Each structure stands twice: as C-alpha cells, then as structure tokens.
C-alpha cells in the first residue's frame, strides 16, 4: 500500500541515474511528486545558452492524468504565456499514460526548438512571431540572456 506508486519511484530513479542530456529533474525533499526541472535552450534556437527553470507536479491520478508543467523562468515564446503555462497537446488532450516525465520534458525542449505560432497561447507573442519572425527571435534571444542566464 504505497502512497507513492512504484512507477514514480522508478521514473525518479532513472531520471537521476540516467539523465536526459540538457535536462535535469530533481524531486523536492518534502514532496516526491514535485520536481524542480531545468532545461537548456536547444542549440540553434533563440533560446540557446539559456537555462530555463520549470516546475513539474505529478497529480494523484498520474499516470492516468498528465503531469502539470510550468515555466518559472520568463520566456518569449508563442506557446508559453506570461505565467509560464505551456500549450502542448500531450499535456492536455493527447496525454497518454504510456508517456512519462522524461518524454514530457523532451517534448517541452522540442517545443523550444520549434515554436508553433499558429496554435498560440501568448497571442501577442504569436502575432509578433508571424509578422516579424526575425524581430521576435531577436527579442526571444534578448529575453534569454536577460532572464535565463546560466549561473
């Protein structure tokens, strides 16, 4: 009768022993369902050289329900709003219990590499992105160096 399902323990162990390149995820000491996550901005994207902090929470019904992920670092991205909420299908309608923390974080990283302004969450950013892509990317880069500095 474990209050923490075996699956979560296992995923945590694997995240620690066999981490994904460019991604770290550590469970909080008090709550093993709460993870502190960092993602490095993918090379070739405006977010390159940035280190983004996220929080990830596994709800009680996980894996039947998707984990909750949110950016803590400010980021200029059409699919991520001012509060850090992420517009990503697998976190909403396309969630499947066959996915796991690892795959979710990889998808978030992929979203950084290829923003999708046609399915926006931050409307103003998306508009900017469509009208003036180079300008928007420059701004994203600027924000990255401002807020997502590696320590």
């Amino acid at each position, binding site marked *: *009768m474990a*209050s923490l399902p*075996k699956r979560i323990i296992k995923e945590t*162990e694997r995240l620690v022993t066999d981490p994904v390149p460019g991604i770290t995820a550590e469970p909080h000491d008090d709550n*093993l369902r709460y993870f502190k996550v960092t993602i490095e901005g993918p090379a070739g994207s405006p977010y390159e050289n940035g280190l983004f902090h996220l929080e990830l929470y596994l709800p009680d019904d996980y894996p039947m329900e998707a984990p909750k992920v949110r950016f803590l670092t400010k980021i200029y991205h059409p699919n991520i709003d001012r509060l850090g909420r992420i517009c990503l299908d697998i976190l909403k309608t396309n969630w*499947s219990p066959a996915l*796991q923390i690892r795959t979710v974080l990889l998808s978030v990283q992929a979203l950084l590499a290829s923003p999708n302004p046609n399915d926006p969450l931050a409307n103003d950013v998306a508009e900017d992105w469509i009208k003036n892509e180079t300008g928007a990317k420059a701004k994203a880069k600027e924000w990255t160096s401002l807020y997502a500095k590696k320590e």
Partner: protein
Amino acid sequence: MENQISDASDFAHTRIPKLSQLDTLLRCHICKDFLKVPVLTPCGHTFCSVCIREYINVQAKCPLCLTELRDSMLRSEFLVSEIIDTYRSIRSDILEIIKKPEDNAESRGNTSLIELGSEQDDSLIIDADSNEDDDIQIIESSGRKSLKRTTTDLTGSSSLRNGPRSKYFKTNSKAKRSSTASRIDSMIKKSVELVPCPICEKYFPVKELERTHLDECLTLQSLGRKPKEEPVKSKPVLKKPRVTPSEKSHLLRSHQDSKIEQDDSVSHVDKYLNSTADTGHQRLPKLDLPSMTITQVKQKLTNLGLSTNGSKQDMIARYNYFEILWNSNFCDSLNPVEVSELKRQLLSWEASRKVHNNKGSSNSIGALMTSRSDTQHAYKKLLLNLKTDKFDRKGWCTLFRKQFRRLIKDAKKMRKASIKGKEEVVSDKIQEDLIVKAETPNQVTKEKIADAVVEKPVPDSTNEEHVSDPSPEEQLTDPDLSMDLLDSLGTRSHSA
C-alpha cells in the same frame, strides 16, 4: 523480488545487454512493471488488465496509438501471461549468471587488455567502471585475432593468457575450467543443442521441438497412442517435471539452476495448456452512477457487499474500482482469486487514496490510523464518538500513546537539528531514504502532525542520521508536556 524495484536497465552492464529489450517488452507501459494479467487491444498493444481498464474509465483510447478503445474489446493473453511468469521466476538467476563479476575483481580499475586477459577464472571481467564503449573496444580489438584463434587455439587455453580476446571466445575456451563459464557456455549453446522432449524423452533440436514435435507428441498422447506416459492435460499444475532423469540432463546443463528453470517452465506450460476462460462469474456492468440517487448507489454497493461509507463520490469511485478489479479478475485472469481477496485489494486501494486526499486536511490522523490494522478496531470504536462530548480522549491517548511519543520525539529532534545548523548537504543517500520513507503511508501524515506540534519545523532536517541525540528517552519523560501535546492533538482532531 516483490519489494525490490526491478528495471530493464539491470541488464545494461551484463554480458547480454540486449536482454534489457526483452525486459522492457514484458512490461506494461502504464505501470512500468511486469505485465500483470496481460490483455490485448484490437490495435495490437498489450497492457495490464487493471491498468488499461482504469485508463479506459478516464479516456477511451489506447495509450500507445490513441485509437479508440472500449473495455469489451480487450482480450486476455494467457500465453504472454505465462511467458512473463516464467521469465520472472528465472530473471534473477539469469541476472546472476550473466552478471559481470565486478565485485570480486582483483585488479579493480585495471583496464589494460593484457592484464585482463591474464587473470584466471575472473578473466571474463571487464573492469567494473568500464562503460559500454569499453566493451565494444575490447571486442573490436580482439576481433582480428579471435578469428584466427578460434581455429588454432581452442584447446591450448594457456597460450591465450597473454593476449586479448573477445568475451564470447573466452567463454568457449574456458568452458571446462570454471563452473560459471560452463553454465554460460551451456546457455549459449542451448540454441543449437539437443533437448529431450518432455513427453517422449527423445532428443530434438530446440527449435524443432518447440515448433513441431511437442504438438505432435501431445496430439499423439491425447489420442492415447502412447500410453507409457500420462497425458499432460490431466496433470496438476505444480507437478514435478517428468523430464530430466538426471543422467540425461547433465548432458545438457550443468546443475540446479537449470533444474529450477525446468520445473517452472513445465508448470507454466501446463498452466497455459489447461487455460480456459472462467465463465462462472458475470461481468460487472459499468453503471452511470453519477445520475443515480444516493440511495440507488448505496443499493448497488450493498448488493455487492461493499461498504457504503463516505460521500457519493467516494462510493462511485469505490464501485468503479471494484468493477475494474472484478472484470480484470474474472474476465481476464488465468487464476482468478476469490471475491474476498478483491475486496481486500479494494480496501487497500482506498486506504492509499485516503492518504493522498487527506494530505492537507485535518483528518490526517484518521488516515494514519486506518492504515494500521492492529489498532484499527479499537480506533473505530473510539472514532464513533469523535464529534460528540462522549469522545474518550483518555482512551484515544492511551491507544496511540506510542505513536504520539514517537512523533514528539521526531519533532524535538527536528527542532534540535534546525538549531544545530542547516548546513547539511542533502546527499543522494538521503534522497533514497526519503523515497523509501515515502512508501510508508504514515510519512506524510506524520510530518503533518509534527507540523502541528512544533511551531517551526525545518523540513530539511528530517535526516535523522546527522542528529546526535544523547538521551531520547529522557525527553519523553516529561509527562505534562506530553499530555499537553496530546490534548492539543485531541482537540485538533476534535475540531475536525
């Protein structure tokens, strides 16, 4: 094996890393554990019966390919089930056999190929710290020579000592010298060697035996043409192997390990051959409980002999999970368990849910206690009057004196530690500890209560190892303080 969490990566550093793929394939993609009562979807994917049924209640699609799925479409897979049972029973043996004996390596950290080769029985060792790249290098570098060697040096193993060689080659040349090696040898050779048919005891190549001969033999037997052995179907599941007169088996495999293996495989084969779908129990229907009145819901639960405690939502959740357990057990499982066992599973599921849901609420003491079977009965009696004036506070205190004392002790330790300093770095080991602790459901609630007792808890200091506590008993002997705390706890739950 039950308590330990196994993972496909267990095979990553063995001699056959590819086994991790097999290991992964035999696992459910929902719970990541070995498939328990596997069922097949129309789209060709396999999950644990309980897992997929639970998910279908949330979302009616396949977790892997997202095609539409209903629980009536699920078909049980007896064969996969027996394959997994067999595999589970031999997994630790396999791991043991193909493990690189890194710990007894005398020259730890010695990566030189020549020196590796010069070791005697431990020569199969690749250095403990070597990663997979090293393995590849060794094989590659020896590849040039091993071709020659296999033809010339097979007999003279002494001449091999100073040269690099491939792992597989070593296994062959040293097979007779160490028992480990010979076992591996037999494992490798198994695929081409002759194996006795369990029925007629004649020898056949494994593949032929599996593909054609067994079927033939069984058919002949069931027709009664060879009466010298009793037919398989009438044998009880746990019967000892009828194969392996020992003088024959030694030709094939060295000893006990393989015997155990055969024991199991035979019984699993029998189980599979005897498998029939249980028709004694009816499928429980899915009900639209939310649209029913609470009396109707209660009626449904009572009909099944389930408790009607809690809110309507609790009852609905209870029915739904029982429906999953029931259908999984009686529709899919090869070995259905009794209804009483299902009810026990339901109870423990509910208890673990309660711990979750009450995390922040003041009812956490109740959750803590429901998880303790020994005190449960007395606790329930007391709890009856919890909300009235008749509540027996003294009785409650005595009943849980031990727990309260422990909590007080923990809380004091925490405070002490927080004063002593917060500089302790949380190491990996402590994280492991925390994970282990979190498995016991008391953990969360314990901390909650500690929060209530101590005003300034420091979460980081749950690490008790670093705290030196010279006289823990002494601290508990202050009866006034203890009673005060107990009282405050009592009123706390009272106010709930």
